[in-house]
């Protein structure tokens, strides 16, 4: 009994302890759960307060377009930059009512084609781009419509604040901000470029060019004016540094506004300087004369018989400014005698003539940053007749850029330099270049060119004080199958200042008409030459070329000075 009672008591004690332990565990578990719930509730409360956090909003920061470096001119003036703009798109799967969406969107963006948009939305893709390049106001209006399924992406957009001014060099980009032409394309192909250039104030990358915006503007403006004055179909011009080979300005009219990229596709707006090939006419005589002088076949005192035209096979070569007598070498140049030039070339012979032109780079493509120039059109069988006509610029078509580049050694002391659109120092240009002419040849050519402006066909290019020297060229264009006497291509190739040439200017006018301003003439001396003269008059001060007047005019006039 006592034993069983004792056992019972022990059992009861154990049971009580067990129950107590169970209650304790139960409480612990309750506490644990309560804590967990409090934690979850607290987290919910904090999430509720924070909301979706910073960065929430409708604008997604995924740009589909790449950020491009700025393009600046040699003095750091902006030519092209990137600006952020929103693109509107729709996700058809999230759209509730397609018709309502189309109606509302077109009310804000009237230029969106409603039918087309409806079609695209019904096609059921996940991404339908509605409109690129929204203005902030339009973006806000769309946002306020509050339609589900519409969203924005921020994209970079290229803008060219200067419009068409330097469009042929700078080039343009496609809708995805990829370079299509010009320097823009070059930058894409050469991403290391941006490392060579200092960052802009806003620490963006930039690429600087050899262009000078001031010179570029003057060139374009004067060409525009010339095109209007002489009723020309097109006009083109280039300004180069004769020592470094830098292109300081390049303009080809009509040109295009890179902000309206559809214009660039029009064929008439091509870059005539780099990608158009032309028979340049008499300006080619500079190469013929340089050739005979450099080969030592003629000196300044040599004479050439130009009494009558040359008859060769069924062709006749005659002079425009015919003198009908024996001409000295400078006279052949200043009277622009075709007969004289043809005879010079014959003295050189076909092989040497061709070799000379090849040495100057006129028989192949010239590579540049904005693409290789168009290939010259060379006669398939270079005969005696070809040499005779090429001597005065017919029968060989080259790009004006090649013509300008080939003239550089004629005026810079005989060094051939490659043209460039990126900055290059004169020392670098001279040390990189190869000698192709004797120094004396270059000196003689400069003298001849100056003489031609003082006494010959280029008189109207004589910009006061800037000592211009140059050669006119009037080429007859091939219309149908014959050379036309009314469709002309006039050009003026010149350098200044002639006592120590620094810059080269080439102006070309396509089909200028006989107007009173050009004394009812259509030759280069009456239209291209004065245009070049006006350009030099204005770019001389920009480029820091000191004007020097002849001794008799060079006197101190206090009144003129005082007026400024």
């Amino acid at each position, binding site marked *: 009994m006592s034993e069983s009672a004792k056992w019972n008591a022990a059992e009861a004690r154990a049971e009580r302890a067990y129950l107590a332990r169970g209650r304790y565990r139960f409480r612990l578990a309750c506490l644990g759960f309560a804590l967990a719930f409090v934690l979850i509730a607290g987290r919910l409360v904090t999430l509720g307060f924070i909301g979706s956090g910073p960065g929430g909003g409708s604008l997604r920061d995924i740009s589909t377009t790449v950020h491009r470096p700025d393009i600046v001119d040699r003095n750091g003036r*902006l030519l092209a930059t990137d600006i952020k703009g929103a693109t509107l798109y729709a996700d058809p799967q999230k759209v509730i009512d397609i018709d309502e969406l189309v109606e509302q969107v077109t009310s804000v963006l009237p230029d969106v084609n409603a039918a087309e948009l409806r079609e695209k939305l019904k096609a059921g893709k996940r991404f339908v781009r509605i409109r690129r390049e929204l203005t902030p106001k339009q973006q806000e209006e769309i946002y306020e419509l509050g339609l589900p399924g519409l969203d924005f992406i921020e994209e970079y957009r290229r803008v060219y*604040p200067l419009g068409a001014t330097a469009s042929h060099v700078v080039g343009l980009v496609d809708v995805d901000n990829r370079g299509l032409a010009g320097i823009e394309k070059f930058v894409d192909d050469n991403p290391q470029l941006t490392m060579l250039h200092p960052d802009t*104030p806003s620490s963006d990358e930039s690429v600087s060019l050899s262009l000078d915006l001031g010179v570029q503007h003057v060139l374009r403006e004067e060409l525009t004016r010339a095109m209007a004055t002489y009723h020309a179909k097109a006009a083109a011009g280039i300004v180069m540094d004769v020592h470094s080979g830098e292109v300081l300005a390049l303009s080809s009219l009509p040109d295009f506004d890179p902000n309206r990229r559809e214009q660039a596709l029009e064929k008439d707006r091509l870059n005539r300087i780099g990608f158009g090939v032309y028979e340049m006419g008499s300006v080619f005589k500079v190469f013929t004369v340089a050739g005979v002088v450099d080969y030592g076949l003629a000196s300044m005192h040599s004479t050439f018989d130009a009494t009558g035209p040359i008859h060769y096979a069924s062709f006749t070569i005659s002079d425009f400014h015919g003198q009908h007598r024996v001409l000295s070498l400078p006279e052949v140049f200043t009277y622009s005698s075709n007969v004289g030039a043809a005879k010079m070339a014959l003295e050189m012979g076909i092989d040497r003539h061709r070799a000379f032109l090849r040495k100057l780079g006129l028989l192949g493509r010239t590579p540049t940053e904005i693409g290789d120039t168009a290939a010259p059109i060379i006669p398939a069988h270079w005969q005696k007749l070809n040499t005779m006509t090429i001597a005065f610029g017919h029968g060989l078509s080259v790009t004006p850029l090649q013509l300008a580049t080939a003239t550089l050694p004629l005026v810079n002391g005989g060094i051939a330099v490659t043209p460039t659109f990126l900055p290059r120092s004169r020392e670098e240009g001279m040390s990189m270049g190869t000698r192709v002419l004797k120094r004396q040849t270059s000196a003689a050519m400069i003298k001849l060119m100056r003489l031609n402006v003082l006494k010959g066909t280029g008189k109207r290019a004589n910009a006061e*004080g800037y000592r211009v020297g140059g050669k006119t060229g009037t080429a007859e264009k091939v219309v149908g199958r014959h050379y036309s006497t009314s469709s002309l291509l006039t050009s003026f190739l010149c350098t200044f200042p002639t006592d120590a040439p620094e810059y080269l200017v080439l102006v070309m006018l396509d089909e200028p008409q006989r107007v009173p301003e050009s004394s009812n003439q259509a030759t280069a001396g009456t239209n291209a030459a004065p245009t070049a003269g006006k350009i030099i008059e204005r770019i001389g001060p920009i480029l820091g070329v000191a004007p020097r*007047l002849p001794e008799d005019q060079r006197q*101190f006039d206090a009144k003129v000075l005082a007026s400024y």
Partner: protein
Amino acid sequence: MLRFVNVCLVLGLVALAYVIYQVKYEARALDEEIVSLGKQVDQERDALAVLRAEWSLLNRPERIERLAQKYLKLAPTQPRQLVTVDTVSDRDFDRSRFEITAATPPPAATAAAIKPAAKPKAAIATAEAESTTITALPWAAKIVAPVQASAQ
């Protein structure tokens, strides 16, 4: 004794936990600040790009030329207006000084002449406000927005 140490340790633990909690939250706030500042920098940079484009647009040579022709009585420098010092003799110099002083109008006239010059400035401002060339561009509206944003 052991109990006291234990209590101290527990208290220390609690204090440390609190400090760590505090620091973590501060760090998170700083992180958020970095993100928002980065965004602000980006925005400012974009605004700067817009303003530089605007600056470049307003400084187009043809526009400056047009305005100069309209408001300034200046003409391109002619070569005969430039002389180097070595070509000027002392006599020339004395003569020029005399001629300039003789040509200068009396002070009262100068003041009167200067006064109307203040006007064209306002004229430029109004002419620019009305100018269609700038506002016609699609991105022109954007130019105004960042300026207002930074003003706020």
